[in-house]
């Protein structure tokens, strides 16, 4: 919340639980009702008297609510977008009240497959209902009501976070003044669905998976493979070439067997291992499935322009030139649909070699775009 003497942004995890009864539960797209629901969130900065400076930021597939700062000075790691959120940073905590929550279905504090099913008294695992991006947004709306915020100055996210930003416009157009959609798409492409499928198959074919009831013996192999596949899609040909080339890892010659020889192999192995320490395999199934089901154009019978008819927020859409997972043309489709509704939109395709990961790495350019855009939106709200 405030800067301490050690000069770090103090992050405090908070919980909001709703749905003590079925009536108050979350009605899901699948038709099922989920209750109770806990949302883990963090806030930074102060909500002003007019409640006009609140910004909701969404995390991507495997992120969490810990967007910036540290919980205690001894923490080794800062939040996942720490370069962007803080005093004097693009999401300036001296000006804005920043909210970030863990998604429904996640495994970092919000209700997901690891939560206890109130009916059975046991962990949900695969009894957890399949959720959608809309469901995530509906849960966030309950948090918004709890925080007594009427309208977000901006809703902001990259990748799956950008899908949530677009889904907010679809679900609650009157509650959003502006949208910043980064490296995202209005519908998941067949190519991305295919990668998600491979990731889930890896998990579900791990003998430890056991139909989701793996207890303390999780399908680490499968989850690590899913992460490795995912990670390849976050990089680019160019970034892999410059990061690893064909360099060998801790050896001079080929080993003439199938153990890891190349740096890129070692890197992927490391990413997979690190991931299983912090992420739940079932959660990966649910959240990736939610992405597969995302298609904003469905509201307009397949026509995105029609689906965005009521979107009268101000938009900024950002893509990255080397992102082949959510390529620039996916962003351009969103821009075109908004323009075809005569909506105000700013679009920038940032030149970058980092692939999809660029949304976490190109912080300087991204920061300049975001701080400029937010400044204009704040002035609009003040003058309204």
């Amino acid at each position, binding site marked *: 919340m405030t800067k301490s003497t050690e000069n770090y942004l103090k992050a405090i995890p908070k919980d909001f639980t709703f749905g003590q009864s079925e009536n108050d539960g979350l009605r899901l797209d699948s038709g099922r009702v989920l209750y109770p629901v806990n949302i883990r969130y963090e806030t930074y900065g102060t909500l002003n008297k007019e409640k006009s400076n609140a910004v909701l930021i969404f995390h991507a597939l495997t992120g969490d609510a810990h967007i910036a700062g540290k919980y205690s000075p001894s923490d080794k790691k800062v939040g996942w977008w720490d370069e962007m959120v803080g005093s004097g940073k693009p999401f300036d905590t001296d000006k804005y009240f920043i909210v970030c929550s863990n998604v429904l279905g996640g495994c970092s504090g919000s209700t997901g497959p690891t939560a206890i099913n109130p009916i059975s008294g046991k962990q949900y695992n695969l009894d957890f209902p399949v959720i959608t991006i809309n469901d995530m947004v509906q849960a966030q709306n309950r948090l918004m009501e709890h925080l007594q915020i009427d309208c977000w100055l901006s809703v902001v996210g990259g990748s799956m976070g950008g899908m949530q930003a677009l889904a907010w416009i679809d679900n609650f157009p009157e509650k959003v003044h502006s949208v910043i959609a980064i490296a995202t798409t209005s519908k998941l492409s067949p190519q991305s669905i295919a990668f998600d499928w491979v990731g889930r198959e890896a998990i579900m074919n791990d003998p430890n998976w056991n139909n989701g009831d793996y207890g303390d013996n999780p399908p680490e192999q499968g989850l690590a493979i899913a992460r490795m596949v995912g990670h390849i899609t976050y990089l680019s040909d160019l970034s892999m070439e410059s990061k690893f080339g064909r360099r060998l890892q801790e050896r001079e010659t080929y080993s003439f067997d199938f153990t890891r020889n190349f740096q890129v192999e070692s890197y992927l192995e490391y990413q997979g291992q690190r991931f299983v320490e912090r992420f739940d395999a079932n959660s990966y199934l649910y959240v990736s499935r939610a992405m597969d089901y995302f298609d904003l154009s469905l509201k307009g019978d397949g026509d995105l322009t029609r689906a965005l008819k009521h979107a009268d927020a101000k938009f900024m859409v950002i893509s990255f030139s080397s992102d082949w997972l959510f390529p620039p043309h996916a962003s351009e489709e969103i821009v075109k649909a908004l*323009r*075809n509704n*005569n909506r105000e939109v*700013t*679009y*920038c395709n940032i030149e970058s070699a980092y692939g999809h990961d660029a949304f976490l790495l190109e912080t300087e350019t991204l920061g300049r775009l975001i701080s*400029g855009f937010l400044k204009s939106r704040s002035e609009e709200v003040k003058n309204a």
Partner: protein
Amino acid sequence: MLKKAKKNLAKRQDLMIIADIIPPESKVLDLGCGNGDLIHVLKENKNIYACGVEISQDKILECVNKGVSVIHGDLNNGLSEFLDDSFDFVVLSQTIQAVQRPDKLLDDMMRVGKTSLVSFMNIGFWRARAQLFFRGKMPVTTTLPHCWYNTPNIHLATIKDFKKLCSEKQIKITKEIPFGENLNFAAQLFPNLFAPTCVFCIEKA
């Protein structure tokens, strides 16, 4: 920031003329809007609603910092994201010579806006003619500083050429504002020879 934008604008006489023509509260599309100075000044002074299109990332960053809405795009790909008749004015200042198909871009501009304001450098200007005639070389001038092999200005035209294209396309020229550096009376009298630059207001016939 506004002061600086006004100062920059004052250096471009064609933009000053265009800014004068556009009435308050207009909807303006500025193609190749650069750092957004024209839109910025018009937004503050005439409360216009505007959108820019720009190809350079650095210039987009400048636009966003000024609160100018801008779309990163290449005019060679057309204006399909814009609806028919969705703007009162479409501005194309000193850019038409750099696009691959000026004729097609004009068609799109006619579709999107009620009036288009086009300014360009007149290659029929006497200095350019003199260079070609006396020295037998492609003209290099202060407004056209590049060599033939590296110039982005691939479709240079004279004022006469542009008017001929408009007439072929049945585009109505409602205003023609040639202007020169110091021989302004000559530019008015014989624009094709004495006006290095010209602003045209054009509409669908």
